[in-house]
């Protein structure tokens, strides 16, 4: 059976310091330096997923162009531009700082306005620092429920669920 090759634009969004850049680094082997990102506030990396099967039994291999975007909390025209044409969003909160999870609904609204129909996956990052069953994880679950989006607890440090976030997003886009 033929595998369909699809290129997709994925945007990583979340308040400063939640671990977006660290997650990208963990997810892709990355030979580009970050120098110009601090200048223009965005960096593009690439990662090919393993082929996924959707509900119509189609095999799809995604080539994700992952945009690590700074400053979404300010909703500037620049950030607006960076979200154009996105096919999926990974919204990231920091499990050690509840306010970064509280910021996610507003960010998702912003994202959905610019790229309506693009699926969302939520990630509670720095799970290595949050005890099991932590309060912030419960808050994240509630926010995810409200946004009708799946969520995972990740760690860019030990690598847990990082790959899965992108796979989840791939599966949603594949439908």
């Amino acid at each position: 059976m033929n595998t369909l090759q699809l290129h997709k634009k994925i945007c990583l969004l979340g308040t400063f310091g939640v671990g977006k850049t660290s997650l990208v680094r963990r997810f892709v082997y990355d030979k580009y330096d970050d120098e110009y990102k601090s200048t223009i506030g965005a960096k593009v990396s690439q990662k090919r997923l393993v082929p996924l099967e959707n509900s119509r039994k189609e095999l799809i291999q995604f080539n994700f162009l992952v945009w690590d975007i700074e400053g979404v909390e300010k909703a500037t025209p620049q950030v607006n531009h960076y979200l154009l044409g996105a096919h999926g969003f990974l919204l990231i909160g920091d499990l050690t700082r509840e306010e970064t999870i509280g910021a996610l609904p507003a960010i998702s609204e912003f994202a959905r306005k610019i790229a309506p129909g693009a699926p969302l996956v939520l990630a509670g990052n720095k799970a290595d620092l949050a005890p099991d069953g932590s309060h912030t994880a419960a808050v994240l679950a509630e926010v995810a429920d409200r946004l009708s989006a799946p969520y995972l607890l990740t760690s860019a440090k030990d690598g847990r669920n990082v790959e899965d976030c992108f796979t989840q997003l791939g599966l949603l886009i594949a439908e």
Partner: protein
Amino acid sequence: MASLNPAMNNLKQPEMPVDPLAQLKSILLTEDQQRIAELEAALAELKAQLSHKAQLIATLEPVIGEVLEKKIGDSKDEMARSLAPVMGAAIKRQIKDAREDVIDALYPIVGRMVAKAVAEAMKKIIANINANLNRTFKFSRWFRQQKARLQGIDPAEKVLADAFPFQLQRVFLIARDSGLLISYAGASQSGPEHDEAHIIGGMLTAIKSFMETSFAGSREGDLNEIEHSEFTIRINSGRYTYLAAVFSGVAGNELDEELRNLHIRIHERFHRQLRSYDGDNSRLQGIEQPLREIIRTTQHIDHEHTAAS
């Protein structure tokens, strides 16, 4: 002095009774008292103004402005030297208190200035180069046509190739919004380079968007060229896509024309697929053909060198 004209005499010295004592009295008493009273009133008003800060400022404001202006005009450097530390400290404090605000406020201004300066400099350089090119081009055109005919190469194609004093290295066709790479052609045919092209397409789009948003409002700021130390990227923007050509050397307007024509050809053939492009490049079979062609055409100048040596 006595006047000879009696009428004038009348005008100058109207008939008035002169009473020296009354005059003295009025000088000594009335006028002085009145003057004193006026002075007292003025002094009181002045005192009031001095003690009332807002009033004082209102009084001094127009004067200070004038004095500063004059002083700056007279001795600009001296003024700058004495003001700089004060201003510097004030600005530093202001920036510290509202760093983001200051940056936000300065950002578009600085951006516009830079864009304009760059555009101006580029225009001058390009005008210079064009003048030189046109001279050499006309001079050798006929000779080259003859040579091409003898070599059995289509003269039109030969002339076209000779008109490119640059090396086109890569051409990218990129989706406008998403920055996804739709097609790519490169002068060298290595595999890893092709994979890298997807990231370059995305990064190029990010940079393009950044520049265009930053320089919004100034026409000179429209991004159609990015310069790097050893190569230049020329951009032609279309409705759904943009073409980015990476070259070394110096390209005049001919390259823009070539890119525009190429873009139109692609658009005519694929516009339906491009409008609904969603990352599926298999629906765009054959789109890389015209990109390869433009690379091939502009390589002719090299073939000539090889043939001659």
